[in-house]
């Protein structure tokens, strides 16, 4: 698995990829921090996804901006991981890789670990940039940030980072499963976008109990620290079960399926 992980990093650690990723991360972090801080409200948001002056002023206010910003990018992240795996089938590069690493599960595990490691670095950079941007912008709205530099703030930062990393990993592994099952970029993206975007949210509006069962909504609930319908711990547990089943299906399929074309 280590060889597959290192091989994946060879592909990701290119100047072009690193520069593009750095620019996107910078734009996303600064832009989303500006949007969230300027749209912060004095009273609470009933949907629970906005931020208030009170929560911003808290020790974890700086990294709350980060988690709030990232939570809006769920569909995007899902699509990125679906595409990253499905394209290896469409392009025929899984075939090429299997000729050099025939242990299929190690190959898949190494590839996903490489992608998640890369995502972990991006998230860490994004959290730092978002915090810094929010700290520069918050005084303009009269939000005090003195508590943002404290041990409690550091603890909140680690907790928020871990939550977001889990949330991203959930999307990544569910996306991988769709990609392994359908093996086509357009089809996988179509399913991924439709499910994570309109399907779950339309059904959510129509029938609220789906908040407790649909994986995308559960991931959103988890990263938001829980909602009125489902607690964060229940969302975490349910998502772990879903992801476990999904990974088992993907692993079994990938290990046994013919790789051609």
């Amino acid at each position, binding site marked *: 698995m280590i*060889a*597959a992980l*290192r*091989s994946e990093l*060879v*592909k990701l650690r*290119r100047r*072009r*990829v690193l520069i593009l990723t750095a620019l996107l991360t910078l734009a996303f972090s600064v832009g989303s921090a500006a949007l969230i801080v300027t749209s912060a409200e004095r009273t609470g948001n009933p949907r629970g996804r906005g931020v208030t002056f009170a929560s911003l002023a808290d020790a974890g206010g700086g990294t709350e901006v980060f988690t709030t910003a990232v939570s809006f990018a769920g569909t995007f992240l899902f699509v990125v991981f679906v595409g990253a795996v499905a394209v290896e089938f469409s*392009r*025929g*590069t899984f*075939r*090429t*890789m*299997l*000729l*050099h*690493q*025939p*242990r299929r599960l190690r*190959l898949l595990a190494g590839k996903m670990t490489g992608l998640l490691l890369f995502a972990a670095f991006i998230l860490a950079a994004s959290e730092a940039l978002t915090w810094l941007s929010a700290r520069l912008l918050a005084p303009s709205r009269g939000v005090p940030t003195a508590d943002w530099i404290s041990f409690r703030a550091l603890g909140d930062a680690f907790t928020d980072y871990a939550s977001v990393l889990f949330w991203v990993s959930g999307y990544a592994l569910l996306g991988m499963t769709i990609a392994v099952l359908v093996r086509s970029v357009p089809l996988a993206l179509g399913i991924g976008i439709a499910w994570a975007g309109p399907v779950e949210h339309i059904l959510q509006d129509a029938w609220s109990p789906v908040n407790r069962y649909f994986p995308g909504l559960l991931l959103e609930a988890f990263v938001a620290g829980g909602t009125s319908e489902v607690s964060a711990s229940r969302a975490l547990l349910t998502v772990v079960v879903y992801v476990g089943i999904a990974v088992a299906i993907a692993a079994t399929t990938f290990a*046994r399926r*013919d*790789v*051609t*074309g």
Partner: protein
Amino acid sequence: MTQETAEALRQRYPQEERPPVALVTNGLSKRYGRRLAVDALSIEVPTGVVAGFIGPNGAGKTTTMAMLLGLVRPSAGTATVLGESIEEPATYLSRVGALIEAPSFWPGLTGVQNLRALAVLGGHDESRIPEVLDLVGLDTRGSDRFGEYSFGMKQRLGIAAALLGDPALLVLDEPTNGLDPAGINEMRDFIRSVGDGRRTVLVSSHILSELEQVCDWLIVIDRGSLVYQGPTQGFLGRAGAVVALAPEHLGDLDRLAELARADGHEPHAEGDELIVPVGESDPRRVALALNKAAIAQDIVLAELEVRRPSLESNYLAVVEGRGR
């Protein structure tokens, strides 16, 4: 294995001298729904040969190669590659280099970066990258992105990737695809040089004249079934040489035919030529005798040619004989 093939094997490799085989299949089959892509294929490729794998499009060549490489699971049958069962590709693939179907790499990576990713993945020595790029003639284009390569260059990079692990067995599926005539010529020399007896090469191609020049072992399949396997010369010897005569005047064709019959042959006309199969006779002696006889009868020959069987002509005869 056909009776003829078994005989060919016995002749070339008597039991006590038969070299170990690089790969063996026994009743290997692959079914896709109702279509049988490979039908109980039993073949042997001796170690150290350059084996040509030929058959019409859809005959099952690529599927067979994919099964040998662990990419496709057989529906029935068994096979070993370098002495290891194909059920455990990890036990032998580190000693096998392969290019199968179209060359597939990451378009945003350069040639060198693509090879590095695969070298790391396969645990191959990265220091071999310049060497294999040089071997396939891409030494000056290694820093270009794969997406900018021509198809021929992509094919070459595929072969470079196959050579990364200095394999004992090289499996090449249509390696001349997309190459220009000069590239095909280079590929022929390349296959000849890598198949120097130190390693075994299994190569499929639809350009039979190329295989004829480099292969000393042939496997011919059609519609998933084995038609022939054995030494190339054994396959070429299935049809005898012919002598082709073209008289200056077309009206002399019948008289020429009489002369050939008088010499014990059974000629037939093809256009303005008389084709004389020579059977077991020496074709040059037959040509000499017919020329002398024609001169004696005041028949002027515009053309006299000995035509020896080619891989292509034999292959076409076999395939057409099977109802294609």
